[in-house]
């Protein structure tokens, strides 16, 4: 199966290793990859900041680039949610409306894609960690991704899965929110990280580069004993 890589702007510019990890994992699982370097960003940062026309002008490029793609996979819950759920609104009464609407059925977040297309026992490897899962809010609420989606991690030796009580709680990223309202966002990160530390985790796993960036910044600022990993990074290392 041919898979088109959807590399969000944050991965492209800040965390390219997350994108490479995802690509390596998919290659190991036997998928044929395609990456179109004309892609830049899905438009979400501007859309969530209220600047709809700017968001649209960037999203137009996205739609053109992925028009012909059959299956699109990206390592971010919130970017996937943007394309799947918000392009309809963004492209209402727009010449690209049909093409944009069509994309929503072909775009997958990485863990969704694995759950749907890869038998769980094909994902094997070893990785030692006491790990908690930080499901991003958009992945949980807009895409309906739950702990079940990463159940395949059970087949990875050495991984101690630590369940966190209650619903997933926001880490405080929220795009430009975390810059404009930095003191609030930082304190939210602190509250969220405390939950993982109290539960006894040494590793926090997430499926959203935004959360990962925000949490890594906080871990670094406070020197916390917690490793923050993207699902793709974890699988890449575990399956080596």
């Amino acid at each position: 199966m041919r898979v088109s890589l959807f590399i969000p702007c944050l991965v492209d510019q800040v965390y390219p290793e997350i994108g490479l990890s995802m690509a390596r994992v998919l290659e190991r699982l036997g998928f044929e990859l395609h990456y179109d370097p004309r892609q830049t960003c899905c438009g979400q940062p501007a859309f969530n900041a209220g600047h709809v026309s700017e968001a649209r002008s960037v999203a137009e490029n996205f739609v053109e680039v992925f028009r012909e793609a059959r299956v699109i996979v990206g390592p971010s819950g919130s970017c996937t949610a943007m394309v799947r759920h918000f392009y309809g609104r963004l492209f209402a009464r727009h010449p690209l409306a049909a093409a944009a609407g069509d994309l929503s059925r072909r775009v997958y977040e990485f863990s969704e894609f694995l759950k749907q297309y890869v038998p769980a026992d094909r994902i094997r490897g070893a990785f030692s960690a006491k790990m908690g899962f930080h499901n991003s809010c958009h992945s949980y609420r807009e895409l309906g991704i739950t702990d079940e989606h990463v159940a395949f991690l059970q087949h990875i030796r050495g991984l101690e899965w630590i369940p966190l009580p209650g619903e997933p709680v926001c880490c405080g990223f929220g795009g430009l929110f975390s810059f404009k309202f930095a003191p609030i966002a930082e304190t939210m990160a602190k509250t969220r990280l405390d939950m993982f530390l109290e539960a006894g985790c040494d590793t926090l796993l997430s499926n959203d580069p935004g959360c990962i960036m925000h949490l890594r910044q906080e871990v670094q600022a406070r020197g916390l004993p917690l490793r923050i990993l993207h699902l793709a990074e974890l699988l890449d290392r575990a399956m080596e």
Partner: protein
Amino acid sequence: MQEPRAFLQRAAAKTRDEEHRLKILKAIDTYTRVVEQRKHTQFRDWRQARQLAARIKDDVLARLPELLQQFEERITARGARVFWAETAAEARQYILDLVARRQARVVVKSKSMTTEEIGLNEALQHAGVDVWESDLGELIVQVAGEKPYHIVTPAMHKNREDVARLFHEKLGAPLTQDVEQLTMIAREHLRHAYVSAEIGITGANFILAEEGAIVMTENEGNGRLTMACPPVHVVLVGLEKVLPSMRELALFLPLLATSGTGQQITCYNSIVRGPRQPGEPDGPEEMHIILLDNGRTELLAQPEFQHVLRCIRCGACLNACPVYRTIGGHTYNTPYQGPIGSVITPHLRGFRQWYHLPFASSLCGACSDVCPVNIDLHHLLLWNRHRAVEREHTAAPGWRLAMKLWAWGMRRRKRIALLRPWLRLGTKLLLPLLPGAQRRRVPSMAEHSFARLWRDHERQKSHF
């Protein structure tokens, strides 16, 4: 200072208050545990219950004028007076006129956020009237000289020790941490208010069209005293609070009790159909119901926003909100705080001054998850942002320019590639100029973009 800037300053101050953070986390943790359990003991299917509630409210909103007229007819037939207030000022004036006519010196109130919305306490005090808050939580914030912290639990930010100290200092009561004794102190303090007040002012949780009645739920019995003891009873209520009939209460009372406090049912539920009737021994001589619009019909006229009028003011979205938990209720500086407040305040009080509220959210959606009438609050926050920027032009010129540049660059790979080294250099140079918290939030760009690394990756593969 401009409200948006002041908001940010208050928020930053609160985030430094570790005691506040832990206190609120603890209070809400207890709430969440009780409520989550209650949802399952109270309803066979919580999701279905909230869907049904949403449907009923949508139906109400579709025939709002008809239901309100029915309510007016039925309750005036039993001697109450109904006043339709288009604005907060009209509602205030109506009450001030009443105060003048009855020569009232003392007014007793039970908890009502709608009176906060119209700034009633200030107006009454300005007119020289003694205002007594009779709800324990409201009394606590009144004695402390503060505003309500939360629409359901106005003194959530004060624990037992805080209240003991407050009563000791402000009311001269003996220092005690016994909850019962603290309640007794409050009761003692309020006793004379009920007998000396000329007017009792309450809100209403629902109004019933078919029966022509107001419904009030409470836990302390103070609301009943407030509407029954003084000779005049005034009800101030938002016009969206109407339900078709008493039958709907079978769903809405438990729904509100569950989401509000995790109770099976609140302790006192009063249904009142008018003032004292001939032959009845007690009850007020006059009853006035003020139906408040104050921007609500404008919300109703917007298809995208109208369903926010389903809100039953249960406070669940505040408790679920990680931003509310971090900055606390007072930071919002609005009668309605948290997600629901950030959705409606710009509409009720103007985007100019209040546009920042919908932006002060991570859009996590926890609010929409818990709302008992299924309002998609976090999407409405986002639509508010769109309106603020695109229609109200609230974005600062600097941001507008930045977004335009960003969009220009992001439209083509070539442009980002071209801008990239300059951006890296620029952030390095500008970073030291930013305040600490913002500085820590700026990412450092990787040495090479994915696009570039992918080329290497592909080249390596082709070598094998």
